[in-house]
Structures are given as structure tokens and as C-alpha cells.
């Protein structure tokens, strides 16, 4: 099957030695097995993230996103932009929708872009890696390369907010999306379909400013996963991954719990199931190491 090519928007957190570096590593391994060619958008910039609103305002946020669109349209014509980070995808897609639907904003934004000799034509599409996997490849294609099924591995699919709302994946419910469970299933693992915290918010945006409030969210997410006997939590979102993984020790420190549930990306599950090494799957990037996956990877 012919290679599928996309204009890749890794986002700040996926850069080398950034908080989601291991996401990028595993995505690279995954795409390699799935015949997906990702070409990084030359000189892309930050999406502004949701938290950018307070100081950034509306038009500056639209403008910096439009800059990425313009660069993609210019250098990678005809290719859809694919983001792996929930926030990047959301920030970009929201900007695109608003620009495409409001002539005035489009005009003002291009006026701004002109300052750097750029123009957004409104052509390029903005998509999340999960959309590409489901819509362009499909579950059978995802299943095909499996060589090391994740046998008997109980995994809680934690979708979180921004890959799920307000756009979400076509045909999935906001309250009960099933795609992570389907991923786990085709990869040979055991999905915990009744996991209640699937779409709960990890409080990511407030992780720094309101630690108590966001850590309360994280507690529920981890506790419920444990109630369901989860050995792993899997997520499509770097903010979710970082928050849910990073703060478990902090919560233990404050509340005397002893959480140590590994939180991985779907791409890491796939990389492992597709036979990549623990390193290529970015497992060494885990703060809470996941022996279970490493064992399978090292088989």
C-alpha cells in the first residue's frame, strides 16, 4: 500500500527533551510500521494552547496558528496537517474553523501574516493522528502489523478532554468514546470498557496555577482505573499523560496514597505490539516505568 503523507505538527511538548519527547519517539516507530510518512512543517510555531487566551487575546492566537497553516500550504501543498498533541490539534483546528467561517477575521489574520510575507489560503485540513489512524487506515490496518499482542494486559483508555471535545473523533460519543478500547482490543490487550473517568478532565490547564484542584481530578482518574484493576492507563494527549503520570508521586506525598500506575500513549502500545524495542517505543521516557510493556517489548 502506498505511503500516506502528512504535514506533521509535533508541537512544543514533543520536541527533543521536552515533556512528551517519548510520544514523538513512539509515533515515529508506529508510523514506520504503518507506512505513514510525516514531514515536519518547516519552522512551525507554538499553537498558543488554550491557556494562551488571557494575555494573547483572539487575533494573535489565530495569527500564530495561521502562520503554521500558511507554512504547510506553502511547503507541503496538498498534505493534511497532522498533530499528535491534543492542545495543538485543538488550537489549530479551532483557529481554522473560526477563520474559515468569519471573513473579517480571515482578512485581519492575513493582514498580520503579510508582515512575514505569508498568506493562509484556507485550503489545508487540520487533523489529529488518531483521526488519521481510524479514518485513513482503519482498525484492520492497525491490527495487521501486530506481532506481539498485548496479551492479558488490562488497560484503561483515558481519552481526556481535548481530543474528545468539542470536535472529537467522528462518530464517537463525547461521553463514552470507544476508540481507545478498540485500539487496545485490536492490539490484543484487554480494554476496561466500563472505566468511568474516560472523558474526565485532568485539570491540565490549571496544573501549575491551581495544583490542588487539578490534582483532585488526577486522583479520581487514577483511583477509578485501579478500581477496574488497570495495569496501565493509555491516552492520546500529552497534557493528560504528563499530568496523570507526573503528579502521582506528589499526590502520594500529600495524601499518603501509593499510586504508581504507568500512563502511556496509544502510539507506545502500537509500537510495542508492532515489535519495536522498548527504546523505540519510548518506554524509557516513562517516569513510572511499565514493566508489563517492557516485558512484551523485550520478548
Amino acid at each position, binding site marked *: 500500500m502506498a505511503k500516506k503523507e502528512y504535514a506533521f505538527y509535533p508541537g512544543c511538548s514533543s520536541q527533543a527533551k521536552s515533556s512528551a519527547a517519548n510520544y514523538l519517539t513512539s509515533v515515529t516507530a508506529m508510523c514506520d510500521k504503518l507506512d505513514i510518512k510525516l514531514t515536519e512543517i518547516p519552522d512551525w510555531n507554538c499553537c498558543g494552547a488554550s491557556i494562551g487566551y488571557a494575555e494573547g487575546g483572539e487575533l494573535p492566537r489565530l495569527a500564530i496558528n495561521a502562520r503554521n497553516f500558511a507554512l504547510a500550504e506553502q511547503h507541503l501543498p496538498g498534505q493534511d496537517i497532522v498533530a499528535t498533541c491534543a492542545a495543538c490539534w485543538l488550537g489549530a483546528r479551532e483557529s481554522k474553523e473560526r477563520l474559515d467561517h468569519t471573513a473579517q477575521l480571515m482578512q485581519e489574520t492575513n493582514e498580520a501574516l503579510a508582515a512575514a510575507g505569508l498568506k493562509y489560503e484556507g485550503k489545508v485540513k487540520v487533523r489529529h493522528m488518531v483521526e488519521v489512524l481510524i479514518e485513513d487506515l482503519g482498525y484492520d490496518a492497525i491490527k495487521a502489523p501486530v506481532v506481539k499482542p498485548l496479551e492479558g494486559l488490562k488497560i484503561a483508555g483515558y481519552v481526556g478532554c481535548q481530543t474528545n471535545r468539542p470536535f472529537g473523533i467522528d462518530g464517537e*460519543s*463525547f*461521553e*463514552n468514546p470507544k476508540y481507545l478500547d478498540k485500539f487496545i482490543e485490536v492490539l490484543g490487550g484487554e480494554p476496561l470498557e466500563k472505566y*468511568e473517568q474516560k472523558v474526565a478532565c485532568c485539570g491540565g490547564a490549571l496544573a501549575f496555577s491551581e495544583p490542588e484542584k487539578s490534582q483532585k481530578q488526577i486522583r479520581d482518574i487514577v483511583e477509578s482505573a485501579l478500581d477496574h484493576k488497570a495495569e496501565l492507563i493509555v491516552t492520546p494527549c500529552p497534557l493528560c499523560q504528563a499530568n496523570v503520570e507526573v503528579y502521582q508521586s506528589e499526590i502520594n506525598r500529600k495524601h499518603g496514597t501509593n499510586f504508581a500506575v504507568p500512563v502511556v500513549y496509544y502510539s507506545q502500545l502500537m509500537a510495542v505490539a508492532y515489535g519495536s524495542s522498548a527504546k523505540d517505543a519510548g518506554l524509557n521516557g516513562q517516569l513510572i516505568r511499565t514493566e508489563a510493556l517492557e516485558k512484551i517489548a523485550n520478548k
Partner: protein
Amino acid sequence: MTASIATGQTILVVGGGISGMTAALEAAECGKQVILVEKTPTLGGRTAQLYRYFPKMCHPTCGLEINLKRIKGNPNVRVMTMTEVTAVAGSRGNYAVTLKVAPRYVNENCTACGDCGKAVTSEVADTYNYGDGKTGAKVKAAYLPHAMAYPQRYVIDPSIAGTAEGEAAKAACKYGAVDLGMKDENVQLNVGAVVWATGWRPYDANKIQPYGYDRYANVITSVEFERLADPHGPTGGKILRPGDGKEAKDIAFIQCAGSRDENHLRHCSRICCMASLKQTQYVREAYGDAGKSTIYYIDIRAIDRFEDFYQMVQKDATVSFVKSKVARIAENKENGNPVLHGVDTEGYHRYATEHDLVVLAVGMEPEVTGVKLPDDIVLDSSNFIEGSKDGGMIGAGAASSPLDVNRAVQSATAASLKAIQVIHKTASTEAA
């Protein structure tokens, strides 16, 4: 069956619910020729599935009995059940209509003695009791749809038509009424006017994801609740919740389940507020002061004298009101109770309240299964029927707007006269 009896002076009424029966009878009692087609095996429609009517708390079957008596006694109405309209050609005053009659596998010899039912063992979903929904009710595959079914004639479910079960039913019938050889039959008719009284259907509760109808056993719809409260229903009138068959005494009613919501139905379905107010009285009927009803609402729309009923319910100590669109429902894993989360907007009170059972007051949307509307029918923004451009086809009852029974009958009576006007004009122009 021949089409010859029908002419440009005949009125076709599509749908055998209370609106269709009314439209047909009112015209027939004015002396007009009417053909009434119904896609299911029996007349009565959705109202026959209600336990009581608001605001009188009387029984829909009472009116049904009168309408059936009118039909039995009136030679001007011809009733065709298990019949759908598959095509309408022509224009005002002169329509060529194609009907498809599905096999009932039971002919007019049937005396409703019930021997075929005794002879078969396999069961199918009891759609009269919303057995295809949360009630899970079943009937024998050879059945009388309900005690007041008209025609009073058994039905053999297609699933056993070609099987040994079917043969057993045939063998059991002393009157040669079981005819397993029946096939789809197409019928051509000429009519002058068409009244579309194809009715409504409850909005699909599975689509209202935050309320988890698809995930939680003890979240049901208002139409299902009617069957639970009805002594003729699957629980013999006991309010037993689907999850564990326990008696539900503390019941939450959620208004606007699908209605007034641009993610679902953009219109207000009009009847739901009154329906829930009525259903709180089912709870009182079952448990007296020991029952508890809570209505979660945005606006209580008890129009005109229905306000009396609202005021009566407000005085009922077992009923309380929360002005809030419930945000989401979770389930208490210990006891299977639904837990409602939201905020009471009068003032600001956050709640997470547990109930035995949740009844979703699901909205009305136009019935579309088995309904093939001609192209020149004009629909409104919610697909209710406004009528055909040339006025030869008229929408009636809940097919034309979300209406309560009384207003649906009023609408159907008006539609009946509009149809009469059409054939009158045809007659006078032909005469001229």
C-alpha cells in the same frame, strides 16, 4: 383487492392512530368515501400505548372503543392494516397511489380464538409494550397485538412464517385462517385527497449520551414508563425497574430529553411537561405518600387549563421541582441507582442526587419508518408536515406538529374538512 371502488372523490388517510381514525371518521360521517391505511397490524397508534391521559387521568382506550365502534358501523370507511404507501403520483384531486400490503399470514376467517397462540412456543419482542426497548416484554410469535386490537385478528410473525412453528400454528387453526403462503401485495388506488396522519415517534434516547440510557439499566423513557404503570403492561402495573426488578419509589423525571436542544430536536415537543406531571400521579397511585417524584425542568409548559393540573401537582407533597437541565447521569455501582449531577439555577445549588429510577421525558419527532412522503410535501425545520404545495395533501395531528391528543384530534378534524374541500372542488370543476 381492486382499486375500482376508489375514485377522485375518495379520501386516503395514511396512519391509523387517533389522528388518522379521526380524520377518516369525520369525513366518512359527512358521507364521504374514505380509505384508512395503517402500517401495523392494528388501529390505535401511540395513544393506545398510554395508560392514562392528562389532565383527566382517563383511559385512552375509552375513546378508542368509541372510534372503533364508529368504524365498525360506518360503510364509508375501508380499513387496510399492515399497509404502507409506497408511491403517490398525480396532483390535487387526482392522485394515483401505490400501496404495499405486508402479509399477516392470517386471513379474515380468524375468530381470535387464540388456538394458534397456544400452538407456538417461540417469542418475539412485544412492540405494544415497547419490548424492543427497556421493558424487554415478549409475546408469542402468533399473537393478538393487544386486548382491543382491531381488526380483532391474530398476527403471525414473519420470523416463524416458513418454519415448523408456523406449520404448528396453521395446524392448530380450525378455521383455515392461517395462510403461510401470503406475500407482499401491491395495490393501486385513485384518490382525490390525501391526509398524512403518520404520527410521531419518541426521540431515540440512546442519542442523549450524558444520560446514559444505553449504559444504565435504570434509565428509561417516558413511553416505557407508561407501560410499566399500566395494569395491562408487562409488570401488571407495578413500577419495577429494569435493572433488578426492584420496585422504584423515588423517581426522577428529566424534561427536554432531546427537545429544545440543537444537538437533538430544535423544537419543544409540547406534551412532555404534562406527561411527566401526569406520571408523578402514577407514582402516587402506586405508593401514596411513600412515593417520591422529582421533576428536573427548564420551563414547565402547562398551557391554558392544563395549568390547573400543574397547580394540583405542585400541591402534592410527594412531588418536587428542580429548575435545571441535568448535566449528566452516573451510576452508583453498589445499588445500581442513577445519580443525577447538575445545578439548580434558581439561586445556585449544586446537586448530585440519587434516585431509584430515571424517566427521560423524550421528545416527539415525526415518525419516518415506513413513511415515504411524496416530493411535493413541504416540511418545517423539524420535518413536521405542512402539506403539499397544491393543497391536495394535508398533514394532520402529530405528523404536522408536536401536539397533545386533544389538539391532534382538533388538527385531524380540520384536515378532514380540507380534504373534503379538495374533492368538492374536483367534483364541481368536473361538473362544470
